[in-house]
């Protein structure tokens, strides 16, 4: 008898476990908070400011999604993840979205069961060295010690690059950007390598940024974008179209300053659909029709976010380059809202 009762309980437990798998959207709404995976601290991309509020380029994606889904950009719990913990955090459901300088690659998209919903920064891997080393090209780094963050694509690119150029190097493995920065500054490595945007952001935080140079070689393609768990397509669509709304808003000249005004109705039907004046786009992804408007109001359109967090007027000083709108010679191109 004991056994049957026990088996019954077991079966019941299994059943409830199966039923508990609600959609991510339902989970987030029920929780009233978005769990967003960010990096552990990279000024400009995601880092807590002096008051402990997270700000940055990746943080803006979290805020836009929270605004679109929950109607409040501040309803985000930021979960710092390292290169090593980020995918497990997403797969286990600890976070709903991963917005952490993460490169979209084939195996991550398929084998790791992630879904990348777009690209919010087109990047490539670079090297930073001390100016007084006198090195002007990555090709001169033969025999150097190189600091490299573990669990990243950059770790693999580095190995490929040195092999392809018949050079040797000594890898100094670090676990986070902070540790890499410390090791590099202490002289434990001659060069620090990661995404060029990350290098710029890291250098901007140095006491003496003028004494460090980023070498001209870009050795890889690093399309960085937000990722969600594979399998929940509705949630993937929500994050994808929130990001697209930010990009499209810049293209059509919708800014945080005029969005309120424009949402009263414009001549341009595309803007009207984006802001929910026309059509029922929101309902198609399980949200209301204002989701695009709220996403834009969170921290402005893509261009505004870029300028405020990592643009040329910030200490990080990144140019738009590849990340300009397609109309400006860049790669940003949102599919139509229709």
């Amino acid at each position, binding site marked *: 008898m*004991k*056994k049957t009762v*026990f088996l019954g309980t*077991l079966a019941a*437990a*299994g059943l409830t*476990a*199966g039923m508990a*798998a609600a959609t991510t959207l339902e989970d987030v709404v029920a929780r009233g908070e978005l769990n967003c995976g960010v990096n552990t601290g990279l000024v400009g991309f995601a880092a807590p400011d002096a008051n402990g509020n997270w700000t940055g380029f990746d943080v803006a994606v979290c805020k836009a999604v929270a605004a679109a889904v929950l109607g409040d950009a501040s309803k985000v719990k930021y979960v710092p993840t390292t*290169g*090593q913990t980020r*995918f*497990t955090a997403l*797969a286990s459901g600890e976070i709903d979205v991963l917005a952490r300088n993460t490169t979209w690659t084939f*195996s*991550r998209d398929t*084998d*790791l*069961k992630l879904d990348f919903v777009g690209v919010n920064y087109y990047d490539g891997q670079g090297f930073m060295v001390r100016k007084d080393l006198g090195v002007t090209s990555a090709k001169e*780094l*033969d*025999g*150097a*010690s190189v600091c490299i963050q*573990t*669990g990243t694509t950059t*770790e*693999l690119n*580095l*190995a*490929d690059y040195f*092999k392809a150029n018949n050079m040797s*190097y*000594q*890898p*100094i*493995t*670090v*676990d986070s950007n902070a540790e890499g920065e410390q*090791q590099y500054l*202490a*002289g*434990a*490595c*001659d060069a620090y390598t990661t995404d060029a945007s990350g290098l710029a952001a890291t250098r901007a935080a140095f006491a003496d940024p003028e004494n460090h140079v980023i070498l001209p070689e870009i050795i890889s393609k690093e399309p960085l974008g937000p990722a969600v768990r*594979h*399998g929940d397509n509705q949630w993937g669509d929500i994050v994808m179209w929130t990001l697209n709304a930010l990009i499209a808003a810049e293209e059509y000249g919708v800014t945080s300053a005029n969005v309120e005004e424009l949402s009263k109705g414009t001549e341009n039907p595309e803007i009207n659909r984006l802001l929910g004046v026309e059509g029922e786009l929101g309902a198609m992804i399980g949200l209301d029709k204002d989701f695009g408007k709220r996403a834009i109001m969170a921290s402005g359109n893509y261009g505004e976010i870029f300028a405020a967090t990592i643009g040329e007027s910030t200490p990080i000083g990144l140019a738009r380059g590849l990340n300009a709108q397609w109309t400006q010679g860049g790669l940003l191109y949102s599919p139509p809202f229709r």
Partner: protein
Amino acid sequence: MATASDAPNQGFRLSQLIYDTRYRSLTIQVVVFILVMGGMAWLIDNTVQNLQQLGKDFNFGFLFNRAGYDIGQQLIPYTNDSTHGRAMLVGLLNTLWVSLLGCVAATVLGIVIGVLRLSNNWLVGRLMTVYVEIFRNIPVLLWILVALAFLTEVTPAPAAYRVNAETGEAQASMLLFDNVAITNRYTAVPAAEFTRGLGAIETPLAPISLNFLALAAVVIASIWFNRRLVANANKVQETTGFRPVTWWKSLLILFGPAIALLVALGFHLVPPELKGFNFTGGVNVSNAFVALWLGLTLYTAAFIAEIVRAGILAISKGQTEAAFALGLRPKRTMNLVILPQALRVIVPPLISQYLNLTKNSSLAIAVGYLDLRGTLGGITLNQTGRELEAILLMMLIYLAISLTISGAMNVYNKSVKLKER
């Protein structure tokens, strides 16, 4: 025939399972067994379900794929073209290497400190107490980080050894006749080379140096001959009362053949040289390794010291007094009377310290030393996304290492156990 003392036979009642001491222990065992099996079944079921939900399978094929990453410290040949399996092996060897050196150093240091803590010299005794209390009461991770910070901050960069073309001087200079360079990345020491070397046998695991094999054979043979010499001397002493002089013969037997072999093979040391960014030519012992080793050693030595002290104190004072009465000096009393007896108290807890040290070596990731946790449980896990497989495999390997250590130590323990006759 009926007996008066027969217990009233009421048949078997269910409550007897709990209240009757004849059945109680059996009941408890059955219940515990069912609970444990149930717990395991639940865990496995849960895992299978979750894997299914994530659309993942369970397979170890990734171990045969190209790893693609480089490893800083390697005891066997490895490149980024090697497989994840080999990367795991490199990590495993790194784990074993630092654990082995850590256990040896911690034992030596621990015994010295433990014995000195009992010293009659007040200052020495107190100093050792301070050592033990400081090191065992601060987490080992902090000691490892402190050791690394110390090594990186107080030592010069390799570039500081470069001779300035104008002044003809370098900021830092090498030690031991230009043979050793201590830098903030590693300590560069000379490499051993043979001009007339015997080469190596290539095995899939690692090339085995014939020079090394030959040297090992010669040393073992020398030791065996020396033992015979000493045994012979003992025999002579027992029969005649006079001990023949053996020390120079011992020296000759122990070192002569080995030195002759080294000379024959053309053994010499190649000092490291600063070329470009780093020292090359010699062997670079990374600071990550030294920091990890130092941290583990200093920390574990504090525990071993306490174990040794307890072991010595466990031997009754009468033993010391008896030894003194026989005219043995304190040092010989310690070596011949106290320590051999103390060993049987010391060895069992010592085993757990060795196990602790080995497991603590997985903190290596904090200083970027790629051990098993860093390769299999770190980069490989992350690059392949095989969390479950990698972690399970890692647990199995650590379990196997631990069981091997305790097995070996138990054999040793048997040999030092008090032999009761």
